């Protein structure tokens, strides 16, 4: 069984793009369309990584991060923000809310895989 990734993004195209790349490379993928659904799924099931968008219509990525970082059972799960927001203030907000990294869309498949492999511990950051 591969590492489990929860993708939280309100774009169905983004979710299916990540799913296609990740499943082809041995990851198991679950999806949530907004922060609230993401929190529900994170509480129901254990994941090795959260991939989080910021601008979503029902609860933002920041809401999701603050919620999981305040929950002792979820606080240790790594989270990568992947967003169109590229300004320094956006990155600072993501990191202060609990993201491990903040990347700018669109991501090339190899970049997405590298992020997931490093953050789930499949490979070392320098490997």
């Amino acid at each position, binding site marked *: 069984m591969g590492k489990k990734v929860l993708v939280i993004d309100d*774009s*169905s*195209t*983004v979710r*299916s*793009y990540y799913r*296609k790349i990740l499943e082809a490379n041995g990851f198991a993928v679950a999806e949530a369309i907004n922060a609230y659904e993401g929190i529900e799924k994170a509480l129901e099931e254990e994941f090795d990584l959260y991939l989080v968008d*910021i*601008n*979503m*219509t029902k609860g*933002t*990525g*920041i*809401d999701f991060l603050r919620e999981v970082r305040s929950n002792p059972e979820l606080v240790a799960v790594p989270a990568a923000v992947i967003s*169109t*927001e*590229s*300004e320094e*203030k*956006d990155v600072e*907000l993501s990191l202060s809310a609990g993201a491990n990294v903040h990347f700018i*869309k*669109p*991501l*090339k*498949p190899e970049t997405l895989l590298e992020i997931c492999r490093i953050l789930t511990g499949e490979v070392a950051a320098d490997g």
Partner: protein
Amino acid sequence: MEELSRLIELLNSEDEMERLHAAEELGDHTSSEAILSLVSCLEKDESRVVQEACVASLCRIGTEEVAEEVAKLLRSSDPYVRNAASEVLQLLGDRARHVVELLLRDPDPDVRTLAVRVVGEGQFSNASALLRSVVLNDPDANVVASAVEYLGEIGGSSEDRDALHEVRARFSDPFLEYAVETALRKMGE
């Protein structure tokens, strides 16, 4: 006038319930003062309940001035405020059309991405034409990807399909290629 001044003052009360009731009641006023106070409250209040009341009241007022003032919040550093502003513009639909057309030409790609969402999820007549224009002309891959996705959902004409094919000539990004394929598949191609 006295009533309006009282409500605006109550928006700054320390009591959340007082601010909530003031935000709700200001939705019955269409003056610039009421609109500006509600927009300011939506931007700055720390209570989500009060912010949601501001959104509801701004939608109820529903004038072009509301659209103009709310559009400024798309630049907020707070994602909740940006999304709330986007929601108001979506609900205003054609009453916000002029403002949204300007936002689609904004220099900031993040603002344009939000404007695309407003068009894609809002109540606009001829939304496909607005999205097509973005698909054909916007220089930013993320903005175009968002427009491609919405065009796949609400479009379907031969002009829409032609616009999607044009994206392939303008960009060589793997995600955008995937978004175009997905949109064309939704259109039955």
